[in-house]
């Protein structure tokens, strides 16, 4: 993170721009040029250790550069055209990720690198935090009072500290108290997911936001199946023969002939047996209604 180590200077609109800034802008432009794809990712909440780990584990697949927002903006503006659409995604603390993978793979990798993290006291929780009822690792002691003070329904049962009921201790948008944050950590509850959070990925004039980058295999398969069903049904409906529908069409015609013969009690040789059985079935059906009466012959009584 050498960038943050360099002498800081206010960004002013000045004709004189320090060389290091020019160099950095030039490097961003060069890398955007060099790689097929780049993404803007949020850095907030990530530790330098985790960032190093991500760099290590993705070496060869992607390059991560932390940069000042105004320099990124400058580089994108310089390049011009479609790339400037990415300026909207520069905010807070930003890193640029360069890759030759497609945007979906890149997104997938960055998501897979995310790890659970504890929430800090005094911060606003982005999510609901729920504590499940059940045992805790603690032995009875002052911890029970501390848990209760933090709003966690702790009690002693069978010589162990337990959570009595499942409870949502913080709702999304609420500030987490120091006491609660501390107790969550002691309970080894890490409610956050921290990593390089994709804001947008750019490829070849196209900007992909995270929701577009999630690949849902099950949903894709379902859509394929739906498409196939549509085609199959349409072909059946208009009796259009294809490799897939010819046999079902023949079977449908056969079924219709059979149904008509049965409904019309037409004694075609092929269905005479079925007609007899149907008559017999009718008999049994009526007989079953007469089960407790004297109306039945011996042969119909069970």
């Amino acid at each position: 993170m050498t960038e943050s180590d360099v002498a800081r200077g206010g960004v002013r609109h000045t004709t004189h721009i320090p060389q290091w800034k020019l160099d950095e802008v030039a490097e961003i432009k060069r890398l955007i040029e060099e790689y097929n794809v780049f993404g803007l990712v949020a850095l907030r909440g990530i530790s330098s250790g985790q960032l190093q780990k991500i760099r290590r584990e993705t070496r060869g697949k992607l390059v991560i550069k932390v940069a000042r927002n105004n320099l990124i903006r400058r580089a994108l503006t310089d390049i011009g055209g479609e790339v400037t659409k990415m300026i909207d995604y520069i905010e807070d603390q930003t890193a640029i990720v360069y890759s030759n993978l497609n945007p979906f793979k890149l997104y997938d990798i960055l998501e897979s690198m995310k790890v659970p993290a504890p929430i800090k006291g005094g911060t606003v929780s982005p999510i609901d935090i729920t504590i499940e009822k059940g045992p805790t690792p603690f032995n009875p002691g002052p911890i029970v009072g501390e848990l209760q003070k933090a709003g966690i329904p702790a009690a002693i049962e069978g010589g162990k500290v337990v959570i009595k009921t499942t409870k949502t201790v913080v709702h999304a948008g609420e500030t987490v108290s120091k006491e609660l944050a501390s107790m969550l950590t002691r309970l080894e509850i890490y409610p956050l997911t921290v990593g390089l959070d994709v804001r947008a990925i750019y490829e070849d004039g196209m900007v992909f936001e995270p929701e577009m980058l999630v690949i849902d295999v099950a949903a894709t398969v379902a859509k394929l199946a739906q498409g196939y069903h549509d085609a199959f049904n349409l072909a059946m409906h208009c009796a259009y023969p294809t490799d897939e529908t010819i046999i079902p069409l023949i079977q449908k015609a056969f079924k219709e002939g059979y149904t008509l013969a049965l409904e019309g009690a037409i004694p075609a040789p092929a269905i005479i047996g079925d007609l007899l059985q149907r008559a017999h079935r009718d008999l049994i059906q009526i007989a079953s209604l007469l089960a407790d009466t004297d109306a039945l012959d011996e042969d119909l009584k069970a």
Partner: protein
Amino acid sequence: MEYVYAALLVHKAGGEITEDAIKAVLNAANVDVEDTRVKALVSALEGIDIDDALSKATVIPQAAPAAAG
């Protein structure tokens, strides 16, 4: 089960299920008719909606004679 077939037949032919109607059909089929049984049948079928009962017959012959025909 002749008696029940007779009742079904009378019903499907659009007639009313009376003792006389059933007896006539059974006689035509050369069945030796027992009056008490006819009475019992007619009485038991009173109040039964035969068409409704048949439409609920949710069973269909399974093994059709493949050799038929």
